[in-house]
């Protein structure tokens, strides 16, 4: 992953990016370790509660999707977290998977009557409103999903229109 350069405010020194990578077993039981890794890094950088919530939730949603929809994949799932002054970038890598571009998934219809609502399908919908960008890369059975969360930027307000996402940075 390339290092991002962050402009410094006069009189202040930008911190070096805090970067860590770890591989996890393809199981929901890995979530405890995953959260521990994320919280340790986010706390070390003083990331606020709202941002930490968004980042850990996005990691969980993407990881659990990889486990659910590719339980028989070979190898462990990699998680890389990079904490910068102004943003956090996370990547999850499945080394053995079919191609599935999360950006091609439509938003969930959250305005359906309750009798038509189904559990599931909300993970990507919620992530899109909490992070600034999601990138998908697929090469030779390897899927890599990365997202970037700008720090101290409010989550996007829900739109009244079905399937639309409004990003209104504060």
């Amino acid at each position, binding site marked *: 992953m390339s290092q991002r350069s962050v402009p410094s405010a006069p009189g202040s020194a930008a911190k070096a990016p805090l970067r860590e990578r770890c591989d996890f077993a393809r199981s929901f*039981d890995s979530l*405890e370790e995953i959260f521990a890794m994320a919280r340790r890094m986010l706390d070390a950088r003083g990331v606020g509660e709202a941002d930490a919530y968004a980042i850990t939730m996005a990691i969980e949603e993407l990881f*659990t999707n990889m486990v659910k929809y590719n339980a028989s994949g070979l190898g462990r799932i990699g998680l890389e977290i990079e904490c910068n002054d102004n943003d956090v970038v996370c990547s999850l890598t499945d080394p053995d998977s079919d191609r599935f571009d999360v950006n091609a998934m439509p938003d969930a219809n959250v305005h359906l009557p309750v009798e038509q609502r*189904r559990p*599931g399908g909300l993970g990507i919908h919620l992530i899109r409103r909490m992070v600034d960008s999601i990138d998908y890369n697929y090469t030779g059975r390897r899927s890599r999903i990365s997202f970037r969360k700008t720090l101290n930027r409010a989550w996007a307000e*829900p739109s009244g229109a079905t399937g639309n996402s409004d990003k209104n940075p504060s």
Partner: protein
Amino acid sequence: MFDISQGPEGTIVFSGRLDAAQCAKAEAFIDAAGAVQAFDFAGLEYISSAGLGVLLRRHKRLVASGGRLRLINVNSHIYDIFRFSGFDQVFDVQRAGS
């Protein structure tokens, strides 16, 4: 970590993080609890889409018998999750401090 227990006055008390790994535990407790007045989220720090699924399934069973899922003491982050998922219009949600 996540914990779920019987609270006073017919409530079920949630605490910690309701993530995908904890949903089976939560659902088993809820199913065994019988009639419940409300879910108290005062100690719940986090919920993901898997946890929302647990709540939706419970809500649908309540609706079938003329009821509605009631959540109390919901923190601001979890309330935002409900707004983004449209569940603030489905469940009876009382925010913490209100």
